[in-house]
């Protein structure tokens, strides 16, 4: 196999043209030259070996789902998997080529710049022996995300997971809908699962004997524990801080609900953040720098999205409303790049997904089909997962906020309250 890879490399090296032929734009050092808003073409060459067809299909689909590249399929298989015919690929509209070679325990990936007729980057990815296993598939997703970054400069989102609620249990699924499974037992009615940045832990609320409590689930150990700070009253909508060490959640007894901060893995008491004077203050979401929170508050008489510093100072309305209207805005989620907050807003009696820009408070409506709720950003800050009843029962859908392209993620029993993990890629 190694010999074959070496042979392939030599063929490719021979195919690399003189740099003098390069007439493309200059100035981009990582990734291809392409203009924002356009989708460069990419060809994924067939992959030979056990699981090669599966890996090839996965890479094509992952790149397609990421919406950053135009995947050119249905190409002549005669292109082969070894020689890279740059002139032909360019005629097909490809700006880049992804080529991969399977070895028993690794995947060797080569990304070609078709315009410059040379290899852009190469990398080896460790592969579990069990072809098609969850770990094997995640390694393929990881390789795809890396290849996308090599081509476009921004990492893909295939190697991440989405948690959600189905049938009274916390479920997780891969971004392509594979490996969908419950990670909690039946009972307790868990709600609001939220990932810890490492992807190892999930936090969620459940109905306990004396109130609603917060749990932290260790997916590696398969064990969950309830936060000692939350034995009674309402404790819900937990979210991890960006550093993964703290949890902010809403707590209420008899005088409204307010946000509290508690160490995620200690036994210290919680510290109060908001002072809502009897109103509802819930659904916290961290700014990427961990210094601020967006949250839903009913303090004005109806739900709106507010922002507050993590120490509770400077609470401020984010979503605009006119006094006296009955607008209902909730479920904020701060984008990973910090520029936008997605939320759900009642429009003509039905909830739709909208974003608001932090800089100029520009509001953009992203959905209009059915009732759409619970938006959560993907790690790329471009895609959103949300709940929609557009096909009947509630299911999760993934939306490209730039193009509006939408795909259904979950099928089967009703699904809701998603949370998108950070990238689970190997560094």
């Amino acid at each position: 196999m190694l010999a074959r890879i070496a042979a392939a490399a030599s063929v490719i090296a021979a195919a690399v043209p003189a740099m003098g032929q390069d007439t493309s734009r200059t100035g981009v050092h990582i990734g291809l030259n392409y203009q924002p808003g356009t989708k460069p073409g990419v060809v994924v060459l067939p992959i030979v070996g056990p699981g090669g067809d599966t890996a090839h299909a996965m890479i094509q689909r992952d790149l397609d789902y990421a919406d950053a590249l135009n995947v050119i399929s249905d190409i002549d298989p005669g292109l082969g998997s070894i020689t890279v015919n740059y002139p032909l690929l360019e005629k097909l509209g490809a700006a880049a080529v992804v080529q991969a070679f399977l070895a028993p325990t690794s995947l060797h990936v080569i990304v070609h710049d078709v315009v410059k007729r040379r290899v852009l980057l190469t990398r080896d990815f460790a592969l579990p022996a069990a072809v098609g296993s969850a770990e094997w598939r995640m390694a393929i997703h990881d390789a795809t995300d890396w290849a996308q970054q090599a081509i476009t400069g921004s990492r893909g989102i295939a190697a991440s997971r989405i948690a959600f609620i189905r049938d009274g249990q916390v479920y997780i699924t891969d971004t392509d809908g594979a490996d969908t499974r419950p990670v909690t037992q039946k009972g307790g009615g868990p709600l609001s699962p939220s990932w810890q940045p490492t992807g190892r832990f999930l936090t969620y609320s459940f109905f306990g004997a004396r109130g609603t409590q917060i749990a932290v689930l260790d997916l590696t150990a398969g064990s969950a524990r309830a936060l000692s700070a939350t034995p009674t009253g309402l404790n819900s909508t937990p979210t991890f801080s960006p550093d993964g060490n703290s949890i902010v959640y809403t707590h209420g007894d008899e005088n409204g609900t307010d946000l509290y901060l508690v160490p995620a893995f200690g036994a210290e008491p919680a510290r109060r953040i908001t002072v809502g004077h009897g109103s509802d203050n819930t659904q916290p979401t961290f700014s990427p720098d961990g210094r601020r929170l967006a949250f839903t508050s009913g303090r004005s008489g109806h739900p709106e999205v507010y922002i507050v510093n993590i120490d509770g100072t400077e609470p401020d309305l984010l979503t605009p409303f006119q006094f006296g209207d009955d607008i209902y805005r909730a479920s904020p989620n701060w984008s990973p790049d910090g520029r936008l907050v997605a939320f759900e807003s009642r429009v003509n009696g039905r909830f739709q997904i909208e974003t608001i820009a932090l800089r100029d408070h520009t509001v953009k409506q992203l959905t209009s089909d059915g009732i759409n709720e619970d938006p959560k950003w993907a790690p790329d800050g471009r895609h959103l997962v949300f709940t929609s009843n557009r096909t009947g029962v509630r299911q999760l859908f993934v939306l490209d906020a730039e193009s509006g392209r939408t795909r259904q993620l979950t099928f089967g029993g009703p699904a809701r309250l998603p949370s998108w993990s950070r990238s689970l890629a190997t560094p």
Partner: protein
Amino acid sequence: MSRRSRIGSLLILAGAVAAACAKTPPAPAPSPVRAGPTVDSSRIRDSLANAKRMADSLAAERDRLASGVAAARSALVAKIFFDYDKSDITDQGKAILDAKVPILNINPGIRIRVEGNTDRRGSDEYNLALGQRRAASAKRYLTEHGIDASRLDIISYGAERPVAEGDAEDAYSQNRRDEFVIVAGGDNLKVAAQ
């Protein structure tokens, strides 16, 4: 003698009399000897009639008490309903809560769990907070009317436990509710004196 044991004695007595009546053999066939009613037989008839009246009266008292207990129980668990996205107690809700107060007062052992619920519209997560506020509203009203706060637990189920399905306003309005669950002291419920 406490009211409770007096009622208990009455019920036992009523039961005994009723049993005695049931076992009374049929009246003997008329004697072939022509004889006028004697003082003794007249007394017996009077006595039986009295016993029958007493048994009827006690049975009525028992039924009244039983229906009183049932009425008290249903008043205790009667739901209250809310307007959309509101946690204010309506006038109808106040009347329903007012009816619970005397029953809670004469049954100091009773503990109630107030369960706040919402309709399915809006954010499931925000609805948990709204349900909590609805449960807290009822607790606040009852404590303001003299009920010890320690006897009232509250929990929110948000939109998670609907009693009516569908997207009609009728279903929504049935689901926007507080439920009242007797969690302790529900046996031997006492009712107010007439």
